[in-house]
């Protein structure tokens, strides 16, 4: 296998290079002005380690896989094109009103509950750039008001006069009958054909999202249009750089659906948050490879803490309505729960409870924690970790960031000790305890709300901040085993290197498997089978376009099912690709019942209220060759020699503990280090709390086990 995988984050660009059985991890600073520079630097570092030239490597790899934050940046910077939206007449305010609740989408609980202080985000489509088309399709797909060509031309002209640089066409019930959207596209193209230089891209909503819900589908299309140009140019320029360096194949882009595809088969929206999703995909791989059926994947960075699940029953967790930046969309994404907690989370004294609270406000990386000395005055998690002795003032982040312990102390003294009367160490301990508890609660809720018991899981801890807090939050959850996975500091890039080419197509429908009012069961299977066939065909087209052999294509059918008119739609992996008998219907009902009970409790099922399928989803994929990482079984009585000792304080231990500090290079595979201890790497610190021990594995992986 020869494969390059790159994941671009806010601070670092991570590279994972697999080359004839050798695995290399490298990093470079992200170059926001031109992402290709950081990309190539990280790759160059990797090639250097292999002793080969970049041209040599790029000329021989089978794929370059790329997870990008370009889309996220474009949203934050609001530098997309002026989008003109054509929607059904009467629905012009749907996007500006954001289902009312949109003021709080993407914000913390505290911000969501503050109604007087709440503001909607600056819109991606200005009100004056939204026009109504006089047409209407009903819920069944019947056109009750047809499209009037002259009306469309008039409205399009208004948008062009307003300066539209991209069109979004989103008409009501277009997923049931897309004829009107296509008709509008035809009319626009007749006025503004694609072959002229001033061609304006057109995005039709039904092509971006397949499920009903006009607001979130429209926003999916708007985001796609908004990001399209910038993504296209960014990707193309990177591809040019790769070609100049000898790469000849199409670049593969990592998708947030746990798959990847070529540029010609990628919507801009599918690339958002692809990095964290790739990390979860790597967790899936570790689960299979290390025979760990239940994994809670935790990724703690400077400003984020993402939680994902891998379960023994193989249930795929999706976010059907993810919030991207501040926008609710209806494009399915692999589910990850982002908790606004990282090293930058701000701690404060809460007068109400006479206790220390941490987050959700964050100092981020700019100004960052008080100890950074970049203007941040408020105490953060990182400041507490510094005061408690876990971090080395003189060697933080491998010496790349200079920190001041005195600044951290002062911030805690000023904002926590003064109002609460606590000593400095008590206050820092309280911060650590609360951070760990917050993470533990968030993990607990994520796992429990899906019907699982956290105690049956192993925690996977990766990202720069994870290994300092892993013992803390695992302990609070009653979980006694934590795995720091191999190549944990470039784990998302590793995940990107392990993905399949994959496409998801879905369609809303109203298919009663059991009609409780009429007391009848589904007997006509035509709609079900035809819909699956249509979605399979679309997936096949996507993959064939990328040169895939049809015979290699596999599919998985998933059904979103519900009881009665509940909100809960449980995604069920169908054991059947076609329905042929009543027994097949019963099989689906049984499968749904099991999944539902798993989540809400046995007996909570309500088939008496009727059962229906709301969405059929077909996942089409081609399996790619996997990496070969194995779990170490080595064990040695040899003891590593600490480089130093320093005093550390731990939340549940009264006095300071003289704690051994190790350089990671001194702790070889199979060695065990008993807590309290610290192992420092250039990118992170492993904190082994009292009562825990660490056993080092391969490729800087490690097991933390509570004794």
């Amino acid at each position, binding site marked *: 296998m020869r494969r390059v995988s790159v994941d671009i984050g806010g601070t670092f660009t991570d590279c994972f290079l697999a080359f004839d059985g050798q695995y290399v991890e490298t990093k470079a600073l992200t170059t926001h002005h031109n992402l290709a520079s950081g990309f190539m630097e990280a790759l160059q570092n990797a090639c250097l380690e292999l002793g080969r030239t970049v041209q040599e490597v790029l000329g021989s790899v089978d794929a370059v896989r790329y997870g990008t934050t370009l889309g996220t940046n474009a949203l934050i910077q609001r530098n997309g094109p002026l989008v003109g939206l054509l929607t059904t*007449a*009467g*629905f012009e305010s*749907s996007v*500006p*009103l954001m289902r*009312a*609740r949109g*003021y*709080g989408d993407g914000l913390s*609980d*505290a911000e*969501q*509950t*503050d*109604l*007087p*202080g*709440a*503001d909607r985000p600056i819109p991606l489509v200005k*009100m*004056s750039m939204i026009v*109504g088309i006089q047409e*209407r399709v*009903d*819920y069944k797909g019947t056109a*009750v*008001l047809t499209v*009037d060509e002259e009306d469309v031309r008039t409205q399009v002209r208004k948008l062009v006069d307003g300066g539209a640089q991209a069109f979004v066409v989103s008409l009501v*019930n277009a997923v049931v009958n897309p004829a009107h959207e296509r008709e509008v596209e035809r009319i626009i193209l007749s006025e503004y054909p694609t072959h002229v230089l001033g061609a304006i891209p057109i995005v039709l909503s039904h092509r971006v999202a397949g499920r*009903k819900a006009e607001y979130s589908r429209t926003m999916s299309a708007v985001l796609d249009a908004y990001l399209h140009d910038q993504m296209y140019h960014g990707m193309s320029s990177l591809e040019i750089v790769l070609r100049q360096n000898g790469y000849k194949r199409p670049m593969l882009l990592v998708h947030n659906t746990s798959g990847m595809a070529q540029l010609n088969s990628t919507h801009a929206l599918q690339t958002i948050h692809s990095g964290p999703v790739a990390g979860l995909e790597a967790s899936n791989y570790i689960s299979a490879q290390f025979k760990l059926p239940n994994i809670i994947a935790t990724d703690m960075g400077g400003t984020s803490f993402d939680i994902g699940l891998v379960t023994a029953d193989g249930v795929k967790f999706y976010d059907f309505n993810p919030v991207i930046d501040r926008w609710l969309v209806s494009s399915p994404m692999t589910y990850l729960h982002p908790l606004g907690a990282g090293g930058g989370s701000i701690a404060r004294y809460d*007068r*109400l*409870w*006479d*206790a*220390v609270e941490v987050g959700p406000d964050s100092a981020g990386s700019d100004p960052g924690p008080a100890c950074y000395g970049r203007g941040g005055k408020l105490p953060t998690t990182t400041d507490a970790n510094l005061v408690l002795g876990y971090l080395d003032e003189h060697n933080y982040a491998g010496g790349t960031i200079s920190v001041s312990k005195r600044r951290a102390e002062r911030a805690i003294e000023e904002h926590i000790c003064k109002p609460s009367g606590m000593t400095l160490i008590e206050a820092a301990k309280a911060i650590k*305890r*609360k951070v760990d*508890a917050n993470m533990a*609660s*968030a993990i*607990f*809720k994520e796992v429990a*709300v899906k019907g699982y018991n956290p105690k049956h899981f192993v925690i996977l801890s990766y990202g720069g901040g994870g290994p300092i807090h892993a013992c803390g939050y695992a302990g609070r959850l009653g979980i006694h085993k934590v795995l720091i996975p191999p190549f944990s500091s470039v784990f998302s890039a590793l995940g990107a290197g392990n993905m399949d080419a994959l496409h998801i197509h879905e369609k809303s429908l*109203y298919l009663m498997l059991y*009609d409780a*009012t009429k007391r009848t069961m589904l007997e006509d299977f035509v709609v079900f089978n035809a819909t699956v066939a249509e979605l399979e065909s679309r997936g096949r087209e996507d993959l064939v376009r990328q040169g895939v052999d049809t015979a290699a294509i596999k599919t998985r059918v998933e059904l979103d099912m519900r009881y*009665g*008119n*509940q*909100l*809960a739609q449980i995604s069920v992996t169908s054991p059947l690709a076609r329905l042929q008998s009543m027994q097949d219907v019963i099989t689906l009902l049984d499968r749904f019942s099991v999944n539902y009970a798993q989540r*809400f*409790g046995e*007996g*909570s099922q*309500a088939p*008496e*209220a009727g059962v229906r399928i709301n969405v059929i989803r077909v996942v089409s994929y081609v399996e790619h060759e996997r990496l070969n990482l194995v779990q170490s079984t080595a064990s040695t009585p040899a003891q590593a020699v600490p480089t130093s000792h320093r005093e550390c304080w731990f939340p549940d231990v009264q006095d300071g503990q003289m704690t051994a500090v190790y350089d990671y290079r001194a702790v070889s595979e199979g060695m065990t280090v008993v807590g309290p201890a610290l192992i420092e790497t250039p990118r992170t610190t492993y904190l082994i709390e009292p009562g825990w021990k660490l056993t080092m594995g391969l490729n800087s992986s490690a097991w933390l086990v509570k004794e």
Partner: protein
Amino acid sequence: MGGDQEKSIIEKFLEENVLFLGPDQEIMEDHSVVPTTPRETEALGQFADPDQINLVRHKLQTACNESFDMVEQMGAAPGAKWGDLISGVWTANGDLALASMGGVLIFSVLTQHPVKFILKYWKDDPTVGLKDGDIFMHNDARYGNIHNTDQSLVLPVFHNGELICFTGAIVHEGENGAIEPGGMPSAAESPFDEGLKMSPIKVGENYAFKRDIMTFLQNSVREPKLQLEGMKSKFFAAMRMKARVEEAIAEYGVAAVIATLRKTLTDTEAEVRRRLTCWPDGKIRTNVFADGTLRENCLIRIRCELHKKGDELIIDFRGSSPEFLNRPNNPVLASLKGMLAQEFLSFVWPDLPRNQAVFAPMTVLTDRRSALHSSADAPNAQSMMTFFPSFTAVQIAVPKYLYSSSHRATDIIAGWYNMIVTFIYGGVNQYGELVGNVCADLNGMGGAARWNRDGEHSMAPIFAPMADIGEQELIEEEVPLIKIVPHRLMQDAEGFGKFRGGHGYQQIATMKDTSMWGFMCCSIGSKFPTTYGIFGGYAPGTLPLCKVKGVNVFEIMKDKRELMRFTIPQIMNERPFPGAKYSTHHMGLQLEFAKPGELYMITQGGGGGYGDVLERDPELVSKDYLDGLISILSVNNIYRVLMDEKTGAVDYTATTAARLAERELRKARGKPYHEFVKEWETEAPPAAVPFYGSWKDRSLIYRGSPDDTCPADAIVPIMMPNPKDLRIAQLEAELDAMRGAGGARA
């Protein structure tokens, strides 16, 4: 036999011979937190570290949020889906100590009552009892809740035989078998028209519903499916939360849980008192008016006086309108308090925890049998029609304290829009099911203007953050309700001001593919605004219900598309459909069956404005104009801004001159206060307006005419004539007159 002995015998006899256990006023009128019990004191002694308590609290709070998610996901009621619910943990005394972060916060002060009823009457009753595995439900608002469409469910949590707490949830379920579908009947003329009336009742034992009771409840409503799903969702959510409480006990000990629940209440009340202390002492008075009962137009006075002293706030509504014995617009006192708590939880201190102690430092004064403190004889399904304006009365008074307060938790605002302008529906859907419920669009109330910026358009109801107005495609999939216009911002529907309130939206609805379908509406404010601006800002305008009957708009779409219009003003002003009947009404519409393609049109109101319109930045005026939010009429005549109508370019010289001229005119119109009062004040309310409430003297209550009064401490409830009877009488009189005239002609 001595006097004492005789008295004792009488008391014993009376106690043993109660006809039935109706609403207990002692429970219903007390919103204070039960004093710390010896058991709680003991627990606090064992588990006192605030940081540790904070960890336990965090765990239980997470559990509340988890069970909230479950109810939202598993519930079938439209209300459940957008979060018209809360889930929580009550102490062993029945006080709500912790509640979910999201949902309808009114409930946080309202849910204690049924639990306290269970503790007082059923716990030791040998025929009922309270034991592990019991499931209790309740929906009758006279025992707690807002109205009978809300259903609550609680489970007791025991540990080694000791009652530790209750877990449960309360949800706006919608349909409840009332005289009209959907659970909020504005046609109700007595509590017996309001559907299901569960006093707190044991509906299950050993963690299972009793099938006979479940059947009875399903049999009592139009949507048995909904009833089943609602009960199951609340039960399993309560069970999940019970499991979490048990886990907390296992991890931290039983004392930790008891101590945490108690400390949460105590600390919350102490914090509210601290915050009140930051306000200046003094009295602020406001008056607001409800302009109808949903059946007829009239003026219902809500008189409000806030008195802040030290760490206490007294909210005095004495002198307000009498109760309406045959109209459902009367809140029980507890509902009013719940709504007032909402003001403090959402709009003043949104950072406070959600529990009933938030309201403990407040005192509410009312006249018994007033429209804000109704008796058990009065219906209350639409109590919002008086308690929403009462909320506003407090909301527009509070900024006057906050301006001088040393502590603020959020922005100072004018009056939020406060009416549930949406359609309630009932009938047979496209799949042949009988359905009845309320549309989620009620959640798009216009946000109030802030002290430093405009209000947000149709943003959130006054009773819940993060509520949702839904997606039309999903609504159409379940019910045959077709919105030609689902949510379109209405021009000029704002409270004008230096900072304007957010706009509301218009809705144009019709239906198809059904054999029977009816619409209802339940809002006031079509004649007199229900919310207001502050510091010179305007109230938003009033808007009617409009109907177009005798048309099938789907046929128009098919054959005469050129007649189609997509705004209410266009339809009502241009009247494009030949032969159709156009009409306007107040927004109290009782169930009215419609024909396919007929149009029902309403408009959600806007938020109140803040500050003087002449101080509004002309560029903001121009932007609103270009966005279609305001007409050129408002630009010129309200804001006194002059601009190029095509480009929106402001003519600053002309604008400055126009504003100066307007200021001069204001001075010319102005007069000394005592002169104004002399001209304006009258001894009694005008005879031409049916006025309810006190006029000059709060101890004398007017009952609809200047000649009909009663003392405030002995209110005589109002009985309204049936508007249909009045109409018949009017028509008969006209007929008689015509017959007389005709006879003469003959």
